[in-house]
């Protein structure tokens, strides 16, 4: 069996690699995407007071500390049996919307967008945010920086600290906002909406109106008919902060809807000897290997899958864009507001922009909520209601994030478990890499094309495994080695990061 190794992470950035095995006919037999893990997290946490978790877990990942902070805080609500006040939930969600706006904006302009806006086969030195600015207009560089700045300011005063928020406490939020701060948030939200609309227009003009790019988005190179997962509110519409977990099958029928605290009944993790990271799958469907289809328990938890489970979007502008995307793909409506799922993975980039618009609109709704400046930000936990078990869940930008803590009766942690956003997508990501390999390995495509398509397979999932590992390739040094069935090197391709 021939073996191809893609080792995208040099010693400088950590480790992790892709092995592609070819059979004797030179076709792809299997793909192994290995991810190492950080060691000792559970041991580090056990024995600590549970209330430390929101400030410990927000350091697991430098990219989405806000997601970990909120999932941890929600888990503490459960541990201490303390239901947050109404305004506390809104303040948490408000911080989270500001975070989503910066995160999705950054991904599009720095990572996802360059593939389309600059072009999938442009040299890597141009396929970055600078190339986007040269193509779209230099002022977009300033707009991206300004967007990040205004939302980071809000995250800092809402969260009590920049980068690593500290305001989440069991039963609520440790500070209220002033009327001046509310005014600042409202103004920022309005600018966010305008910028999200500009971004969607750019995507339409440059990608959707270009037949070559539209073909790429709608091509089957990264098509996988998996189950879709996402958090929904009581109206079965996408919500990033709170709700039930809804899963639809590849045809779009609701498979299950469950409370996040029941995750163990629905999600199992497949252990493979060759990787530290486990593959989560739907327990009641079962593990059928790295295959898609209704018989395989593989699911996706991405912006696209969140839209696939949602009965339209809860805000008007985002809902109009939602409809446009599904209509473009020719999907039929299967309920009054929802369409057949889209399984073309490159559409995840489009879905991410629809979510960007939704987060901006939701931020404005919360800023205009008459209750938002209420000082009633916390219910002090009642010792008589102490539970000792808590499961908190939010939609991280890159997938459903679950924190599960158990403590003794003093509140000292005895067990910690997490399923992080990207981990949900480990199996689909592996399948997309395999698909890219199948299409390109035997086609005598030039090195650049193979490297680009493998990178695009990663990038559409917005992987951030700093939670479970250090680094995954966004743009980084990449080495692809192709070996024959004797293991001898046939060809090696390199790209510096």
């Amino acid at each position, binding site marked *: 069996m021939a073996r191809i190794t893609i080792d995208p992470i040099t010693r400088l950035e950590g480790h992790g690699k892709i092995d592609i095995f070819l059979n004797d006919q030179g076709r792809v037999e299997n793909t192994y995407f290995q991810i190492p893990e950080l060691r*000792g*997290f559970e041991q580090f946490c056990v024995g600590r007071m549970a209330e430390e978790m929101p400030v410990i877990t927000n350091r697991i990942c430098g*990219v989405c500390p806000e997601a970990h902070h909120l999932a941890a805080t929600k888990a503490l609500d459960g541990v201490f049996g303390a239901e947050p006040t109404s305004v506390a939930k809104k303040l948490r969600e408000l911080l989270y919307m500001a975070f989503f706006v910066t995160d999705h904006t*950054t*991904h599009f302009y720095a990572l996802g967008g360059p593939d389309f806006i600059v072009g999938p086969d442009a040299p890597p030195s141009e396929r970055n945010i600078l190339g986007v600015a040269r193509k779209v207009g230099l002022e977009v560089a300033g707009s991206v920086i300004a967007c990040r700045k205004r939302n980071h300011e809000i995250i800092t005063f809402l969260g009590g600290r920049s980068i690593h928020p500290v305001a989440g406490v069991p039963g609520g939020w440790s500070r209220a906002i002033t009327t001046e701060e509310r005014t600042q948030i409202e103004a920022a939200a309005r600018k966010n909406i305008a910028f999200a609309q500009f971004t969607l227009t750019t995507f339409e003009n440059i990608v959707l109106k270009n037949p070559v790019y539209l073909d790429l988005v709608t091509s089957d190179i990264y098509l996988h008919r998996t189950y879709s997962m996402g958090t929904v509110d009581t109206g079965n519409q996408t919500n990033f902060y709170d709700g039930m977990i809804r899963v639809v099958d590849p045809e779009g029928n609701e498979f299950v809807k469950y409370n996040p605290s029941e995750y163990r009944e629905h999600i199992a993790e497949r252990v493979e000897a060759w990787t530290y990271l486990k593959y989560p799958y739907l327990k009641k469907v079962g593990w059928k290997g790295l295959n898609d289809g209704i018989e395989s328990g593989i699911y996706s938890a991405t912006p696209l899958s969140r839209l696939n489970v949602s009965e339209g979007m809860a805000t008007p502008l985002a809902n109009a864009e939602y409809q446009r995307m599904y209509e473009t793909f020719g999907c039929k409506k299967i309920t009054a507001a929802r369409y057949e799922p889209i399984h073309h993975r490159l559409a995840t980039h489009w879905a991410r922009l629809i979510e960007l618009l939704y987060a901006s609109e939701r931020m404005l709704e919360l800023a205009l909520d008459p209750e938002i400046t209420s000082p009633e930000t916390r219910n002090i936990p009642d010792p008589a209601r102490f539970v000792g078990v808590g499961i908190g869940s939010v939609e991280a930008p890159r997938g459903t994030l679950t924190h599960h803590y158990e403590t003794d009766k003093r509140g000292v942690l005895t067990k910690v478990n997490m399923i992080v956003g990207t981990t949900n997508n480990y199996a689909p990501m592996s399948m997309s890499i395999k698909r890219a390999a199948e299409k390109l390995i035997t086609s005598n495509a030039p090195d650049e094309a193979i490297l680009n398509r493998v990178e695009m397979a990663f990038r559409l999932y917005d*992987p951030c495994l700093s939670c479970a590992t250090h680094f995954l390739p966004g743009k980084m040094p990449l080495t692809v080695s192709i070996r024959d069935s004797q293991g001898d090197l046939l060809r090696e391709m390199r790209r510096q990061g």
Partner: protein
Amino acid sequence: MKDSGTVIIGMGNRLLSDDGVGFAVAVAVAERLKHHMDVTVTELHTGGIRLMEAMAGFKRAVVVDAMLSGAHPGTVRRFDPRDFVTTKNTFSSHDTDFATAYDLGRMAGVPLPEQVSFWGVEAREFDLFGERFTDEVAAALPVAVDLIVAEITEWEGVA
């Protein structure tokens, strides 16, 4: 946003053993200099655009990070942005490398420092949760602090 002074950016995760050395060095440097000049310490976990933003508005910036270059653990090295070698956390997998982020900042009219230096301390243990440094890195900490204090003092022209 400030338009003067020196920012010392300690990069890395304080909960991942030697990865916390950047922040520890930054704090110790500021402690030595704070009575003599305008210094600000910033803790940063990821690089890329965040790193560029963290130095916006300062006249000078020093970035301290763990590195995994294959050198002996505890080795301290200075990098110039011009021949910039990526240290452990200055790259962001979520957006871009520092060089691209710096150019982006220039393009967007962000006020960026006149002087920037990067310091790396070779780590031994970087994927194990813990709040202690390995012996080699603990020993390197005062060495790095002395070197960085000397550089900033020279920049500032303060005796």
